[in-house]
């Protein structure tokens, strides 16, 4: 059996103007999952349910073996959570926050906290209200990391960071993963970060999970085929085509079930394959969302 740090099964949450429906999520221990969705897609609601901050209407949620929201007190000792709307006390210094948390969390690692101060280029004696956005994110991350949590949950950790701070944050996230018993879930709409460090990727749109798989599977299966058709030629019927663009003689097919054999299949059908383009995660995400929405409205 797989060792899962996070397991959602059939989770629903309904609001007046938004609902999460049938959320299924499996995050194996030791991995890092990128959770991608547009603004308002349901990322933060899902993460709040995971943290026990919002109670689901239906379905089961298990985090580090604890059933949520009932056992959230026990689970939270082992979860480090950083989100944009997390409030640190503006009037207090970072050092004050560190001293406040140290007695609460038994695994608090002071040496690690000190080294993070240096690597994040932060000063402990500075008041939170005087910090820039990037420094605040790094301060919150430092406070979460120094607790040595088994599960790190990060809501948009790299949003609004300058390039240097982003690299510092991604570096520390990967350093956490050097220990294979620790697990990270992070949401983002920066697909570049997700593409780089995630093992697994989950796409969410309009309250539903639209796709979830190993990153390499996504990058392998999605391709754009640029074809040249003879006059009066028809577009070959290929498996997994989600989008047909381009012009009539020069169609561009987007498929999510690419196999190298497709290329020769096309030429057998009279179409020349001009190129087979790989797609970035961003392109895959957008094509995925579009095709799903079109099918719903069709």
């Amino acid at each position, binding site marked *: 059996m797989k060792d899962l740090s996070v397991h959602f099964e059939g989770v629903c949450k309904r609001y007046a103007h938004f609902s999460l429906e049938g959320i299924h999520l499996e995050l194996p221990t*030791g*991995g*890092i999952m990128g959770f991608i969705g547009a603004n308002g897609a349901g990322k933060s609601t899902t993460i709040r349910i995971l943290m026990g901050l919002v109670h689901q209407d239906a379905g089961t949620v298990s985090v580090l073996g604890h059933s949520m929201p009932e056992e959230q007190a026990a689970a939270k000792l082992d979860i480090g959570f950083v989100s944009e709307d997390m409030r640190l006390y503006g009037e207090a210094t970072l050092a004050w926050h560190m001293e406040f948390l140290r007695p609460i969390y038994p695994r608090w690692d002071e040496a690690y906290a000190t080294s993070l101060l240096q690597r994040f280029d932060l000063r402990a004696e500075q008041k939170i209200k005087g910090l820039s956005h990037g420094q605040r994110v790094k301060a919150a991350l430092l406070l979460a990391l120094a607790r040595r949590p088994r599960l790190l949950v990060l809501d948009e950790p790299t949003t609004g960071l300058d390039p240097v701070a982003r*690299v510092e944050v*991604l*570096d520390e996230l*990967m*350093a956490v*993963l*050097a220990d*294979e018993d620790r697990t990270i879930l992070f949401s983002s709409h920066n697909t*570049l970060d997700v593409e*780089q*460090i*995630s*093992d*697994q990727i989950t796409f969410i749109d309009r309250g539903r999970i639209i796709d979830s798989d*190993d*990153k*390499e599977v996504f*990058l392998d299966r999605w391709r754009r085929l640029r074809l*040249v058709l003879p006059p009066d030629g028809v577009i070959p019927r290929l498996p997994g085509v989600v989008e047909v663009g381009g012009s009539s003689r020069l169609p561009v097919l987007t498929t999510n079930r690419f196999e190298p054999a497709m290329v020769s299949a096309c030429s057998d059908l009279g179409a*020349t*394959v*001009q190129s087979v383009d*790989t797609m970035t995660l961003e392109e895959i995400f957008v094509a995925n969302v579009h095709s799903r929405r079109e099918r719903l409205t069709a």
Partner: protein
Amino acid sequence: MHSGILISQTDGRPMYLQIMEQIKQRVAVGEWMPGAEIPSIRELAVELRVSVITIKRAYLELEREGVILTQQGKGSVVAPNPGPNPRVVDKELGEHLEQVVRLGELLGLSEKQIARRMKEASERLNDSRSSKEIA
């Protein structure tokens, strides 16, 4: 052990291919000697800030090509006789040649013309190599 591998965001090729290529180069120039231990999958993932699954993929393919050997629980080493697996290289050559023909057809070139362009390309490559030697 620091690998010094650098991944380019503008390269366009998947990250696992870039990693494979740079490991092969390290082996080819002898920086990574046959039989030498190489970073574990997780170590390299942390160093390159790239997911474990991507490094795993690169190592699997390198093993298939005979460049490295991976032993469960023991990590990976450079193969004793690392060399490009001729079968794999031959297949790659075939694919590239087909691409050449396809592009040629697109330009309306005849088989002969494509062959001539090929010869010219080879001559250009030789010329640029010999001019570098003189410099």
